[in-house]
């Protein structure tokens, strides 16, 4: 048996290896339990009743009929719901009054012995409303449009370097276009579900989320409880993509209902309910103005983004922020405007900011390449900055050019004829396009405990969340490397807020942030083992780590992952259907921890980008003030037949300024640039620019 303490031990690092998912067997056999699958004794089912008006007030709730129905135990509404304290999120102050702020807001929960009884009781609940006229139409010229102070997560709303207007007036070539992206819904396959149980004044919830300690903190604030009184467990999570990035209504409703009844309560949202209650990507309208010389060297970049929010919580998407760091230009301006409407609050959806922002910027760059008659890859290389254009700070590493060159080589880009609309194969017009990708590589403080057990194994405890990313596997590899032991000697436990505060699985920061805490705790433990003579005591040895100070002490450089995406499209000239036979993505994202799960995650991001380009669109029903196509028949995500050949690869990148493991994070970057690459390829195929997403058949042939 290898000794932890033996410096002569040679072992192959697990970093980078394509190890099978540790939870794969549990997931392919159905043994993995998700949060709505814990049967607690005496558990009651809750069914959410939603407001059918977009604005107004509840005038009366008459629960008598519902309460007389078989199995119905209670109706939770604003009159009997526990009082909540403000946790800084208006979406969570549920059932606290008679006001209705958006259509689909929870107004009651019917509690019954069975799912069928709860649903029937909810259908029968007699609620009357006093409706007021609502305002749900997103438009750039709305008088209520304002400039937010900050955009998500905490960027200044505006930036300005040089004199953009003068530079645009003097530029030899100017591109000035407006791009639009629709509201989109995350739609993780697992609907939000919470099973809540109170034992006296302590609360245990099994909740589907991207960060158990974040949800724990929200529950503590809402119910005025100390951390020790709230435990949040999320062992397996069926996807999130931002929709589970913070506490969402089901966990609050289930906790209130369980309090009311004194029994465990489960609340699971329906797919339809998810369209109103758990967030979505804001629609955007974006004006991008580029000024360059005839060779395509940028003199000015101006990116103005409009988006929407609700009237109960400000969420300002950072749509134009990527333009601050992407390309070299002496004159650079970005700005955001925000419109509060009578709608649910938009929240994070995979690559918030960068996903819609890159559609506009990377489409405009393609238009500039066309205007200058420069190859789009070459145009980007010509505008490669040495320092971050907006701030003048150095990049910790920046390998966009390497990705562009490697992607072009893999795709066979150099043989491409730049002229549009000249390739036809039967009824198909063929084209190719490309775009750059980027996403910030940040870290957030996390805590971790590592225990050396007397049997030579190790237990790592961290409130990480594996929402399908492979984090459970990646962190086990990282811990084994840090402890210099084989994988099977490390047991990683995640998804339990009792393990201490930690970053959520979000912002491509999860594995990066957690890995830092894991490595730090493991190194501490190795030090203890070195200092300890003799066998590990029966109770084991424990090391704890908190990276708060380490993260705060990071050097002031800018950290980003980069990538390049190349696609081939075929456009049916009769129907306007767009197919994508081939996609290639090359990424530079620091160390890749697990080649297998990383490849899957990057491909998955590109597939969501394909959906964004061609399929996904939440349509606002102006009369009722709600998203109309609120199910998976009306809201189209990519299916198996939509996806053809996708290849991803990455370049070796050593970045010592990210975190001890050199990780940049890969959760978001796959979706960034995909839609622009496809839109640019559709132009190459047809000669027509697509500046509004999704690229529907009617938009192609109109």
């Amino acid at each position, binding site marked *: 048996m290898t000794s932890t303490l033996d410096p002569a031990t040679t072992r192959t690092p697990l970093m980078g290896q394509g190890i099978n998912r540790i939870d794969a067997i549990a997931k392919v056999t159905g043994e993995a339990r998700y949060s709505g699958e814990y049967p607690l004794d005496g558990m009651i089912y809750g069914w959410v009743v939603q407001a059918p008006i977009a604005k107004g007030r509840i005038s009366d709730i008459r629960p008598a009929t519902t309460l007389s129905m078989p199995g119905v135990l209670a109706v939770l509404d604003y009159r009997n719901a526990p009082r909540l304290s403000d946790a800084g999120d208006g979406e969570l102050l549920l059932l606290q009054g008679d006001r209705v702020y958006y259509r689909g807001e929870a107004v009651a929960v019917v509690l019954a012995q069975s799912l069928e009884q709860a649903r029937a009781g909810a259908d029968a609940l007699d609620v009357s409303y006093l409706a007021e006229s609502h305002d749900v139409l997103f438009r750039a010229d709305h008088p209520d449009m304002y400039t937010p102070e900050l955009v998500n997560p905490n960027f200044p709303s505006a930036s300005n370097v040089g004199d953009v207007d003068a530079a645009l007036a003097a530029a030899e070539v100017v591109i000035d276009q407006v791009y639009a992206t629709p509201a989109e819904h995350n739609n993780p396959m697992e609907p939000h579900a919470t099973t809540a149980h109170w034992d006296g004044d302590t609360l245990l919830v099994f909740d589907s989320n991207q960060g158990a300690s974040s949800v724990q903190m929200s529950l503590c604030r809402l119910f005025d409880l100390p951390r020790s009184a709230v435990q949040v467990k999320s062992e397996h999570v069926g996807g999130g993509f931002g929709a589970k990035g913070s506490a969402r209504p089901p966990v609050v409703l289930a906790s209130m209902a369980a309090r009311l009844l004194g029994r465990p309560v489960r609340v699971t949202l329906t797919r339809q309910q998810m369209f109103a209650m758990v967030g979505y990507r804001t629609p955007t309208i974006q004006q991008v103005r580029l000024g360059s010389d005839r060779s395509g060297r940028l003199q000015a970049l101006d990116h103005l983004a409009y988006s929407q929010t609700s009237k109960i919580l400000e969420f300002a998407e950072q749509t134009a922020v990527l333009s601050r760091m992407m390309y070299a230009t002496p004159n650079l301006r970005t700005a955001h405007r925000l419109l509060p409407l009578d709608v649910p609050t938009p929240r994070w959806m995979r690559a918030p900011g960068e996903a819609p922002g890159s559609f506009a910027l990377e489409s405009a760059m393609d238009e500039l390449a066309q205007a200058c008659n420069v190859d789009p890859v070459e145009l980007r290389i010509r505008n490669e900055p040495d320092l971050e254009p907006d701030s003048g700070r150095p990049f910790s590493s920046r390998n966009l050019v390497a990705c562009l060159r490697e992607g072009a080589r893999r795709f066979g880009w150099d043989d491409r004829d730049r002229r549009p609309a000249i390739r036809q194969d039967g009824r198909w017009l063929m084209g190719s396009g490309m775009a750059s990708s980027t996403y910030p590589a940040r870290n957030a403080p996390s805590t971790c405990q590592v225990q050396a057990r007397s049997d030579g194994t190790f237990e790592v405890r961290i409130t990480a969340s594996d929402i399908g990313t492979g984090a459970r596997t990646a962190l086990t590899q990282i811990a084994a490397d840090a402890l210099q032991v084989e994988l099977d000697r490390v047991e990683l436990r995640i998804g339990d807020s009792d393990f201490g505060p930690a970053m959520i699985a979000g912002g491509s920061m999860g594995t990066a942030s957690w890995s830092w805490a894991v490595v730090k705790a493991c190194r501490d433990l190795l030090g203890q083992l070195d200092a300890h003579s003799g066998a590990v005591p029966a109770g084991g040895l424990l090391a704890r780590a908190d990276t708060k100070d380490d993260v705060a002490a990071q050097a002031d450089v800018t950290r980003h992952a980069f990538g390049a995406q190349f696609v081939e499209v075929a456009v049916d000239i009769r129907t306007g259907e767009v197919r994508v036979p081939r996609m290639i993505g090359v990424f530079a994202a620091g160390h890749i921890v697990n080649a297998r799960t990383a490849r899957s995650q990057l491909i998955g*991001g590109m597939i969501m980008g394909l959906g964004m380009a061609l399929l996904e669109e939440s349509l606002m029903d102006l009369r009722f003030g709600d998203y109309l196509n609120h199910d998976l028949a009306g809201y189209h995500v990519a299916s198996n037949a939509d996806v053809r050949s996708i290849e991803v690869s990455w370049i070796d990148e050593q970045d010592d300024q990210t975190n001890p493991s050199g990780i940049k994070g890969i959760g978001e970057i796959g979706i960034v640039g995909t839609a622009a690459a496809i839109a640019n390829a559709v132009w190459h195929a047809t000669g027509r620019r697509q500046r509004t997403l999704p690229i529907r058949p009617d938009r192609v042939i109109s």
Partner: protein
Amino acid sequence: MTRSSLSSSFTVTVNGEPQLLDLDNRTTLLDALREHLDLTGAKKGCDHGQCGACTVLLDGRRVNSCLVLAVAAQGRSVTTIEGLGTADRLHPVQQAFIDHDGLQCGYCTPGQICSAVSALDEVDRGWPSAATADVGAEKITLDDSEIRERMSGNLCRCGAYVNILAAINAVAQ
């Protein structure tokens, strides 16, 4: 089967074991499995037959179990992911999903696997799909287009399709 206004008693064979159930008539097969038999492998992604996460085999054929009333399955045989294989004895399709990383969050995975098992059987029986060039042919040629088409009733939001295709191809060969 006994009758009352609201519930019924009936027997369904689940993973080879006869199960006597006494259920609210409104109970779907999916909810019977998940809430009454604690077989939570079949997942509820939409409850409307739009996502395929609840796919199980009913008398050997794949169905969306959210669209089948449990009482309508009386006397019939249901195979869920738990009955297809276990950690000690994985079904070849389960093993292929592991080998090819045909899953990420895992929530659609049991449905994908049940669907794949049934799709391969349908091909063996010579049943054509919308991607079949010659619907009159005795034997279906199982190519990538056939697999993609036959698996498109099972949505995967993580985007594991490329790997799911590879996994099914590996089993088919």
